[in-house]
């Protein structure tokens, strides 16, 4: 599988990741971050932002 250069969504560092299909759509840390730790931090931020967004949408309704 081809390797691609990606930017870590948590720390901004450039890293190399294997581009493989993800048919089961599971969370794979190397899709978003340079390490498991960074991926956990990014996932925390995503969940926080989405929960915040959902709460705002509820208030608007």
């Amino acid at each position, binding site marked *: 599988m081809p390797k691609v250069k990606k930017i870590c969504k948590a720390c901004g560092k450039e890293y190399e990741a294997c581009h493989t299909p993800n048919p089961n759509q599971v969370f794979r840390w190397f899709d978003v971050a340079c390490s498991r730790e960074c991926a956990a931090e990014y*996932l925390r931020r995503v969940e926080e932002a989405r929960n915040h967004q959902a709460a705002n949408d509820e208030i608007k309704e």
Partner: protein
Amino acid sequence: MFSVADLMITSLETISVYTMAGVPWFVMDELQDTTIANTQEKEDLTGKAGRKLGSLKRNKAVTISGTNGLISAGLLEAQTGGTFTAKTSTPVSWSETLTISSDEAVTSYKAVGTAGAEIEALYIKNSDGRATTKLEQDSTAASGKFAYAPATKKLTFLADAYDDGTEILVFYTRNIAGDVLTNESDKYSGKGRMVIDAFAEDKCSNVFRVQIEIPKADFSGDFDLAFGDSQTVHAFEAESLASAGCGKNGYLWNYTVFGADAEDAA
């Protein structure tokens, strides 16, 4: 005296294919044409001055080829060796052009994938329609970044970064329920019992049915599906094997003629 009528084939009706276990597999009923090509090799046995004394015949072979006007799912299975599976959820790639309004846009379907990276690519289109600027998905919208909420299918952009009406090109994966056939690299075309049904008439306008049975048709894995400005047809080719019935039957095909309204025989 030979009593079977000479016939004009008036309509090619269907080709029915059964598995080698006798289970009905698929029927092709929009056939444009079918050919049964019969061959055999002959070697002359010669004598003095090369005169023919006899012949040595061998290698009888039958190839059935045809074209169906529709893409046949069953024929695809036979040609690829795969099996259609009805999936309640299977991923498909999707792309669409959306328009930003109030720093937001909404995908038509829910993008799936690794959380926080569901959108595979997003480009801002410029005024002449070209996708030029690529944005990255992040947890929140920022310069050069956008956020996505799968629950609401909402894409969020940095406030006032893009005018209302700006077009974006989005690529993502969505899940759908569908029937999937996978052409595996290590599975090969299959075999089945093939029955060709046709209507025929004799010179006196008596109507007959003709049924040609190929006891073991070995489908070829060579086939084209051509898409373009003309009809996509589904062509096939199969060879008749003389090994149906585990060696008891050595026939390549049966040609049966009977009256269109023939009663059951005892």
